[in-house]
């Protein structure tokens, strides 16, 4: 069943702050096998001009995707999450995420489409730090595949 178009443009309240920790960045960098010292060595990060270690470019997805979960699981929207696959992902960084950031995410439904029985949902997550500075925006396209005919 096609999703309700009236949800397009809807924004959800900002999430509680997520505090980015040095060790979480280290864990993520190790998980993707990336040995760039800017992720683990504060001195190396400072040499590049940053106040503390920075996170890999895709790190923030863990935070924005959790925030998007509030949209995806909104019972009024009625998305069948068991059939969802990740279609596209994009990030636009104002600056890299760094250790010590306290980040909040505001999720907005940008588009809802129905194509060949698939529901396609575009969610934008705007990420701000504790000073209100815009850090990064993440665009996530989710596709709920059509259910097989019974």
């Amino acid at each position, binding site marked *: 069943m096609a999703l309700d178009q009236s949800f397009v443009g809807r924004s959800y309240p900002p999430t509680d702050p997520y505090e980015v920790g040095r060790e979480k960045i280290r864990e993520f960098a190790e*998980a993707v096998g990336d040995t*760039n010292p800017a992720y683990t060595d504060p001195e190396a990060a400072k040499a590049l001009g940053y106040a503390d270690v920075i996170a890999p470019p895709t790190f923030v997805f*863990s935070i924005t995707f959790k925030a998007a979960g509030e949209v995806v699981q909104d019972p009024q929207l009625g998305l069948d999450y068991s059939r969802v696959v990740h279609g596209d992902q994009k990030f636009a960084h104002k600056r890299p995420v760094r250790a010590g950031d306290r980040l909040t995410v505001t999720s907005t439904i940008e588009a809802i489409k129905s194509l060949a029985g698939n529901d396609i949902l575009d969610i934008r997550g705007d990420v701000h730090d504790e000073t209100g500075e815009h850090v990064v925006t993440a665009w996530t396209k989710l596709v709920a595949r059509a259910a097989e005919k019974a």
Partner: protein
Amino acid sequence: MTAKISYDDVEVGTELPAQSFGVTRADLVRYAGASGDFNPIHWNERFAKEVGLPDVIAHGMFTMAEAIRVVTDWTGDPGAVVEYGVRFTKPVVVPDDGTGATIEVTAKIGAKLDDHTVRVDLTAMSAGQKVLGMSRAVVRLA
């Protein structure tokens, strides 16, 4: 903020050093823990097959994280990545055979933009199939 590569030293078509990245089941378990994405299609073969997949598949975000390393290793400064977007076209299938899968990433300069930025066009392949489509990064060079 201090990329090692100079804007003036690159042209449209300049290739970045290509890289191959291995991915095993253990890598996926580690990534699940680090990212918080515990979807069983990334670690449970029985579940993956029940939902119609050929086998366990890598997180799309894992593949996305590997592909950008071709750019961040080249610039030296991961914070120089201004934009990065991909389309997940095919899954990376990760068999439990002790070897896993390989993700092969190539990249070249697609356009020179304003403000010392360039667009890098990325291609990621696994088992002969393109796993990322429309994969592009905008990077600020020195």
